[in-house]
């Protein structure tokens, strides 16, 4: 059942010409193609319904929604009958009431009144009540409910239960699983009175292919599928529209509250990014916000070997400020710095970089985007002129060919993946470029036309080979390029990629991909006519990450695939506010809006508003800060919402640098790995505890709204304000909207953004200014932001991280659906039921050669370090390639990744590490100690089918 107070119009919206008709004497005009049911609901003459809901295509099975149409015989179903001009409809009559009562009585015979504990949650019982039905004349031993084989309630899923006896087999859940989610996990088993809903092959939900997106629960009209939280807490009393705090899709959600606590999270059907859908993380995994591990009191200690001491906010802030001042007095202004977080709001991120630049007086500020999408900013800025994706998500519905490079949307961006799969089912072609057989390569009703299964580290070789085919086979859009791109750069690039050294045949030994596959994929993409590229960290986290981003932009420009719907270059951002944290001036070389600190006019603008002199030299990046800490010139850090000790590569190097600091101030909601090296711990606030905005991968700015009070008393932005004041630089914001007003005043792409406008429009895609007062869904329409698009020559330079006899396998890393990044949030939810440990994926050939069986412990050794993981033998990875996730600190995945990084941005090369894998008897000693220290939990591992369709 959907959100509190939602008016369900019964069938989806349509976009035809206007049609005027009469319903119960009222005149109404709706688009052609609209159902009578929807038109009637829009006219506030709702027709009773059971199998219809406005998120799903009309089905016409329940026969409750019958109406009368003047001049027509019979009683057509209003859900499947479209309006016509001049039509006169009656939704209420004695004949209709009699038929509806008869149909409802049949349903009630299977689902007697009172079956659902709370009739207000059951559309059938409400409807039956409204029609004066108490008991069914048809109830008895032969009716459906009683001849069903008795089946206990399926409570296997941690978040919802399925009660077969409450089910009326309306198929809304089955259709939601197909149409909304695209997983096809549910079906109707049996016929006639024996019909019932089953998951997979009549498996418990947890054991089935179900990915726990919750679309079926939302669609269910009775209490058959119900959130356990609602069963426990009762129906919600309040609702707060907000934005998800997980991945870069940035789903619009509604947080529903019962007795002061969040009791349910549902997707907002007005949300442009998610189109009314959510995933297992956004919908269900919010329990971390009130987990017992939350730190709610400020803590300080002199030395990292001391015990923490609980103190007041004032004492903690004063201590942090006095330490920073002491360090600067002794070691200089540039001896300290700060890190902003992609998990915090735009307003909080803006404040942290302002604190560093204005209060600390240095440009030593960086953000966690350094380790994920910094090459996106660099590559797209240089080629197209703006450090952001070019499309909105709905653009994918107009794509003819979709190329997914180094990303696994069904695992990392599941709600967008559902939209993409809908388009693929409608006939769009698919090219996957990935070392691993990601689920999109083959899943129900989706199969890639080409899977370019390249060796890790050879992205640029592939993009050049694709471009070679496009250029040498005359597939370029020369008219488009002549009008919109720099001629010299085009000529230079064309000559470069046409060189036989870039041909698919020449690249085949390097990439491991058959030349004919590359040629076929290039032709398919170029001929589109609409070719859209979506990419992820499998592009950016390489020593040539920025080169690859530029290579992608080159290819899109050359084929005319930028500047309209259905095409584009779209980075799938890892965290909810990666785009926003970059936009807000978190990088050490630029202010908000991507303007370099050496630009005198920009700096003067900031100096005038901030009333302080600002530095004109770039500051240190995160890895530079580590080096400076180790050489003794960097002594203090303020880190908001980032766990460097777990997320950054070569953990030993990171922890050595953190240990060398004289004052490390951490602001987080949990004691994370980095906190082990901290001197001050400032309790953070979750997204439920504050107001602000997030900006998703589409450049969409959406509101985050305070649902509950901050557990530690202060929202994150308030903590930064206090720290700034203690540092002697006054800040006096009363609400995050005032911070956004300052951002708008200082940032040309945000000049039209206010909280009031976001509230009014629902969300805004920047640029939002005088030229585009309501935002910009598609960028580079007509011309590129930089004026003429610029091609860059992108020679393939092999990574220095190569296999050898000592390290013969290549390790690459990624995510699973049910866990998120370093796992700080999802490890503290029941998502552990699906994935409770990181595993190493190993090809059967490599396993056999090493005598390794499924489930064995294996030692994984690289040039940087070693760890022990449990192994999963699968053909998802190719021979010679191994794969793991990094959600659990005890897996030590980043002990083995190296410090290799992108030449332009220092983004770490997480995706390529040469390793050896050997069978061992047990985890390493440090892992065993860590496991022993963890509280026991009812963990077990289930892999939803979405994650493992191949191999």
């Amino acid at each position, binding site marked *: 059942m959907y959100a509190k107070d939602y008016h369900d119009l019964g069938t989806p919206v349509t976009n035809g010409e206007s049609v005027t008709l009469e319903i119960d004497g009222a005149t109404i005009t709706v688009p052609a193609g609209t159902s009578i049911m929807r038109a009637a609901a829009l006219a506030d003459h709702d027709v009773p319904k059971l199998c219809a809901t406005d998120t799903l295509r009309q089905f016409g099975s329940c026969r409750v929604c019958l109406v009368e149409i003047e001049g027509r015989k019979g009683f057509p179903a209003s859900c499947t009958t479209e309006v016509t001009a001049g039509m006169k409809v009656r939704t209420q009559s004695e004949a209709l009431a009699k038929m509806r009562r008869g149909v409802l009585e049949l349903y009630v015979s299977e689902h007697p009144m009172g079956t659902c504990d709370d009739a207000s949650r059951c559309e059938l019982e409400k409807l039956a009540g409204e029609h004066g039905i108490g008991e069914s004349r048809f109830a008895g031993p032969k009716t459906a409910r009683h001849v069903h084989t008795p089946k206990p309630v399926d409570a296997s899923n941690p978040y919802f239960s399925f009660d077969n006896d409450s089910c009326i087999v309306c198929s809304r859940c089955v259709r939601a699983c197909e149409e909304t989610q695209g997983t096809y996990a549910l079906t109707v088993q049996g016929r006639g009175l024996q019909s019932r809903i089953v998951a997979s092959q009549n498996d418990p939900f947890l054991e089935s292919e179900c990915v726990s997106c919750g679309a079926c629960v939302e669609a269910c009209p009775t209490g058959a599928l119900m959130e356990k939280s609602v069963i426990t807490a009762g129906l919600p009393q309040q609702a707060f529209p907000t934005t998800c705090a997980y991945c870069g899709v940035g789903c619009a959600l509604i947080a529903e509250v019962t007795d002061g606590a969040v009791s349910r999270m549902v997707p907002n059907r007005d949300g442009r990014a998610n189109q009314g859908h959510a995933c297992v993380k956004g919908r269900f995994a919010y329990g971390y916000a009130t987990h017992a591990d939350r730190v709610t009191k400020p803590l300080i200690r002199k030395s990292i070997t001391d015990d923490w001491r609980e103190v007041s906010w004032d004492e903690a802030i004063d201590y942090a400020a006095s330490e920073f001042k002491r360090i600067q007095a002794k070691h200089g202004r540039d001896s300290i710095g700060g890190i902003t977080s992609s998990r915090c709001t735009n307003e909080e991120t803006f404040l942290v970089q302002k604190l560093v630049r204005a209060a600390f007086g240095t440009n030593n500020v960086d953000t966690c985007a350094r380790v994920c999408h910094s090459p996106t900013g660099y590559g797209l800025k240089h080629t197209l002129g703006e450090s952001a994706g070019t499309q909105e998500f709905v653009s994918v519905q107009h794509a003819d060919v979709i190329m997914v490079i180094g990303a696994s949307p069904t695992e990392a961006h599941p709600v967008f993946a559902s939209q993409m799969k809908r388009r693929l089912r409608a006939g769009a072609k698919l090219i996957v470029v990935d070392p691993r057989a990601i689920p999109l390569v083959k899943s129900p009703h989706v199969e890639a036309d080409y899977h370019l299964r390249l060796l890790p580290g050879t992205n640029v070789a592939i993009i050049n080979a694709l471009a070679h085919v496009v250029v040498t086979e005359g597939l370029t859009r020369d008219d488009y390029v002549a009008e919109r791109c720099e001629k010299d750069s085009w000529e230079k690039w064309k000559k470069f990629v046409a060189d036989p050294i870039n041909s698919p045949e020449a690249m085949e030994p390097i990439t491991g991909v058959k030349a004919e596959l590359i040629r076929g994929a290039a032709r398919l993409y170029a001929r589109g006519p609409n070719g859209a590229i979506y990419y992820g960290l499998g592009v950016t986290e390489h020593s040539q990450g920025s080169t690859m981003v530029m290579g992608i932009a080159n290819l899109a420009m050359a084929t005319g695939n930028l500047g309209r719907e259905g095409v584009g270059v779209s980075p799938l951002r890892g965290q909810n506010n990666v785009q926003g944290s970059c936009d807000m001036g978190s990088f050490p070389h630029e202010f908000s809006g991507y303007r370099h600190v050496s630009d005198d006019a920009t700096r003067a603008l900031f100096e005038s508003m901030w009333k302080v002199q600002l530095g004109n030299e*770039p500051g240190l990046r995160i890895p530079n800060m580590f080096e400076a800490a180790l050489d003794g010139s960097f002594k203090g850090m303020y880190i908001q919402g980032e766990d460097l000790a777990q997320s950054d590569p070569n953990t030993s190097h990171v922890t050595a640098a953190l240990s060398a600091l004289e004052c490390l101030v951490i602001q987080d909601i949990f004691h994370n790995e980095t906190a082990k090296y901290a001197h001050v711990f400032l309790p953070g606030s979750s997204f439920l505890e504050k107001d602000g905005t997030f900006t998703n991968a589409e450049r969409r700015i959406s509101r985050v709204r305070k649902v509950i009070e901050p557990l530690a008393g202060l929202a994150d932005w308030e903590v930064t304000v206090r720290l700034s004041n203690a540092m002697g630089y006054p800040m006096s914001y009363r609400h995050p909207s005032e911070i956004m007003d300052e951002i708008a005043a200082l940032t040309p792409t945000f000049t039209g953004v206010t909280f009031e406008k976001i509230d009014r429009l629902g969300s805004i895609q920047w640029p939002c200014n005088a030229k585009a007062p309501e935002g910009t869904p598609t960028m580079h329409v007509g011309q590129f932001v930089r004026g003429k698009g610029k091609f860059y020559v992108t020679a393939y330079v092999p990574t220095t991280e190569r296999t050898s006899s000592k390290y013969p396998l290549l390790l690459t890393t990624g995510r699973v659906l049910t866990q998120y990044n370093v796992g700080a949030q999802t490890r503290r939810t029941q998502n552990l039921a699906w994935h409770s440990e990181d595993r190493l994926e190993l090809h059967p050939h490599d396993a056999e050669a090493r005598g390794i069986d499924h489930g064995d412990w294996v030692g994984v050794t690289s040039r940087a370090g070693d760890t022990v993981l449990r192994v999963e033998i699968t053909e998802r990875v190719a021979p010679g390639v191994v794969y793991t996730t990094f959600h659990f600190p005890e897996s030590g995945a980043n002990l083995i990744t190296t410090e290799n990084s992108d030449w332009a941005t220092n983004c770490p090369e997480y995706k390529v590490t040469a390793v050896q894998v050997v069978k061992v008897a047990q985890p390493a000693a440090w892992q065993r100690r860590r496991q022993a220290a963890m509280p026991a939990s009812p963990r077990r591992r289930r892999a939803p089918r979405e994650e493992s369709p191949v191999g």
Partner: protein
Amino acid sequence: MANDIAAFFDAEPDKVAAAEGVRFHISRYWEPRMRRAIIAHVQNGASGLTPTARAAIEKLTPVA
């Protein structure tokens, strides 16, 4: 790192332009103490640097 940057710009056929690309990149993105260190490294023999990287750093504006 300077060599990695040079490896990208070395695709440029004009070697003077390649070195200028490296110089501009380092001046835009490297913090002053890093630029100071690489300039000192070149002054001390430039061990390990590629020709393009070395040419670029020799043209870097000295850091105060």
